[in-house]
C-alpha cells in the first residue's frame, strides 16, 4: 500500500519534471532560440504559445520581439560652423536575427552598450560634419510674413542637407555597423537639440538686440508717420486757407470792379453828372464826419463860406 503510493508520487514528480523540461511557453512579445549544449539548434522560434524541445539537453534563450527603444546620451558637439550644441537622440531597434544576436551579443544589455557606441559615435560624426542650420531645418520652406517690416528679420536661410537627411545618414551608417549583430535599427531621430549654456546666453543677447532693433524701428516709424500726417495737415491747411483767401479776394475784386463800373456809368455820364456827384458826395461826407465834438471854423476862403455867404 505504502510502496504503491510512493511509486505514484515518484511518477507524478517525474512527469512534472519531464513536462517542465519539454514544454515552454513563448510569449506574444518574445522570440527564442533553442540551444543544445550551448549550440543553437534549428530556426529561431517565433510562434507564441506552448512549444516543445528535447528535455534536459536543450535550453531556451528568450529575446524580445518588439520594437525596442534606445535613448541616446546628451552629446555635446560643435557643428561645422563652430556652434556648440548638445543633442539628445532616440532610436527604435529590433532583434531581427536572434541567433546572430545570441552569438554576437548574448543579451540585451550588451546590445544596448554596443548601440550606445555606434549611435552616439555616428551622431557626433554627423553633427560635426554639418552646419547647425542643417540640423535644425528639414525643408527650404519660406516663412509666412505677417508684417512688412519683419521681412528683413524673418529670413529662413536655405539648407543643403536638412535634418531628415542627416537622421537618415546616421541611420544608414549605424545599420551598416550593426548588420552582423542580428539587430536592425528602424529609425533614428534627434529628440532635443539646443545650444550649450554658455552659447545660449549669447544667443539670448542676440535675440534681445534684434528685438530692440525692431522696437526702435517701430518707434521711429511711429514718429515718422506722425510727422507725415502733421506735414500733410499743414499743407492742406495752407491750401484750404490760401485758396479761400484767393477766392474771396477774387470775388471781392470782381464785385469792386462791377460796382466801379456801375458807379462810373452813373456818375460819369457828362460833366453835369460829375459835378452833381462831387457835390452830393461832399454833402454826404459832411454828414458823416461831423458831430458834436467837431469844431468848425468857417473862413471866407473856404468852400463852405461861399455857400454860407450865399445863404445870407
Amino acid at each position: 500500500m505504502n510502496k504503491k503510493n510512493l511509486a505514484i508520487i515518484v511518477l507524478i514528480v517525474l512527469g512534472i519534471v519531464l513536462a517542465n523540461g519539454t514544454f515552454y511557453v513563448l510569449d506574444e512579445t518574445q522570440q527564442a532560440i533553442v540551444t543544445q549544449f550551448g549550440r543553437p539548434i534549428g530556426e529561431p522560434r517565433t510562434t507564441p504559445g506552448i512549444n516543445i524541445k528535447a528535455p534536459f539537453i536543450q535550453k531556451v534563450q528568450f529575446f524580445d520581439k518588439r520594437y525596442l527603444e534606445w535613448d541616446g546620451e546628451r552629446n555635446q558637439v560643435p557643428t561645422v560652423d563652430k556652434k556648440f550644441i548638445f543633442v539628445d537622440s532616440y532610436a527604435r531597434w529590433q532583434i531581427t536575427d536572434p541567433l546572430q544576436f545570441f552569438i554576437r551579443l548574448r543579451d540585451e544589455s550588451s546590445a544596448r552598450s554596443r548601440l550606445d557606441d555606434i549611435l552616439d559615435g555616428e551622431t557626433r560624426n554627423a553633427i560635426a560634419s554639418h552646419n547647425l542650420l542643417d540640423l535644425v531645418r528639414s525643408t527650404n520652406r519660406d516663412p509666412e510674413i505677417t508684417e512688412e517690416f519683419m521681412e528683413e528679420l524673418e529670413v529662413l536661410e536655405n539648407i543643403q542637407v536638412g535634418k531628415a537627411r542627416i537622421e537618415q545618414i546616421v541611420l544608414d551608417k549605424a545599420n551598416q555597423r550593426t548588420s552582423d549583430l542580428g539587430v536592425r535599427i528602424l529609425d533614428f531621430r534627434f529628440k532635443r537639440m539646443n545650444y550649450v549654456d554658455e552659447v545660449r546666453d549669447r544667443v539670448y543677447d542676440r535675440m534681445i538686440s534684434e528685438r530692440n532693433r525692431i522696437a526702435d524701428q517701430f518707434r521711429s516709424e511711429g514718429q515718422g508717420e506722425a510727422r507725415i500726417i502733421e506735414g500733410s495737415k499743414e499743407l492742406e491747411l495752407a491750401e484750404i486757407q490760401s485758396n479761400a483767401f484767393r477766392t474771396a479776394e477774387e470775388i471781392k475784386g470782381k464785385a469792386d470792379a462791377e460796382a466801379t463800373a456801375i458807379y462810373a456809368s452813373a456818375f460819369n455820364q457828362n460833366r453835369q453828372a460829375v459835378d452833381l456827384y462831387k457835390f452830393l458826395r461832399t454833402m454826404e461826407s459832411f454828414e458823416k464826419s461831423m458831430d458834436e465834438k467837431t469844431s468848425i471854423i468857417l473862413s471866407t476862403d473856404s468852400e463852405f463860406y461861399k455857400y454860407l455867404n450865399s445863404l445870407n
Partner: protein
Amino acid sequence: MSEREFEININPDWLKKYLGKILIGIFLFVMLITSVKTVGPEEEGVVVQFGRFNRTVDPGLNFIMPFGFETMHKIPVQRQLKQEFGFRTSELGPRTEYDKEQYVDESLMLTGDLNLTDVEWVVQYRITDSYNYLFKVRNAEKTLRDMSEAAMRKIVGDRTVNEVLTVGRQEISSSVEALLQEMCNEYENGIRIDQVVLQDVNPPDPVKPSFNAVNEAQQERETLINQAEAEYNRVIPRARGEAKETIQLAEAFALNRVNRAKGEATRFNSLFSEYQKAPEVTKQRIYLETMERILPKLGNKIITDEQGSNVLPLLNLNPVKESAP
C-alpha cells in the same frame, strides 16, 4: 504566544476529517479569483492563452481559464489619454496648478532662424489597436513621448520664431499632429493621435522683456499715428468750414457792394434826371438840407471874416461850447 494557542486549538482528528474539503475550498477559491475578471466600461480585455494572443473581450464580467493558463491585459481603449510637454499638471481642482520649472529642457527649442523659443504642448491620444499597443512596441508611452518631442522640434525647426509665437500656432499643431500620426503608423504602436494642442508658447524668459518692448513700441507707434491723425481731424475740417465761411463772406460783400452800387446808381440817375431840369436850385436845396441836419449837431461853430485873422473865439472854445444852445 498566539502561535502556541493556535497549535493547541487544532485538533488532529478534526484536521484529518476536513483536510480534503479545505484543500478543495482553497482550490476553488484560487480558481475563482484567477478566472473571473471584470472589464471596465472604458476598457477592453486582451486575453493571452499560454503567452499567445487569444481574443479581446468587451466590458463587463468575463471568464478566462484559471491558474494563469490565460491572463488578461486591460487596455483603456475608450479613454482619451494625454501627455504633457514642458509642464505637468500638478494639482487638479478649481484652479489647476502646473509645474513648469524642471521641464524647461522639454520645451525649449530652436527655431528655423536659430532663435530659441519655449513651446508647451499637449498630445491627446487613444489606443485604438490594443494588440499592436501591447505586443508590437515595448514601452509605447515612452516611445510616444520621444516621437512627440522629435516631431514638434522638426516642425518648429522649419519656422521663424515670430511664426511660432504668433501666426503659426494653428498650423504648427496640425502639422505636428499629422507628422506624429504618420510616425505612429510607421511604428505600429496602435495609437491614434486625437489632437496636438499648443499651450503656452513664449520667448525664453531672459528674452521676454525685449519681446514685450516690441509690442509696446508697436503700441507706441499706433498711438503716435493716432494722435497725429486726431490733430489732423481736429484742424482740417474746421479749416474747411472757415474757408467756406471766408468765401461766403466775400460773396456777401460782393453782393452788398454790387447791389449798393446799383441802388446808388439808380438813385443818382433818378436824382440826376430831375437835377438837370433845375440844377442850381436843386443843389442849393440839397446843401441847405444837409446843413440843417449837420449844424445843430456840431459843438463849436466859428465863423471868421474874409481875412480869417480874428482868432479870438479859438481862445475860449469851452465856454463857447457851454453856452451853445
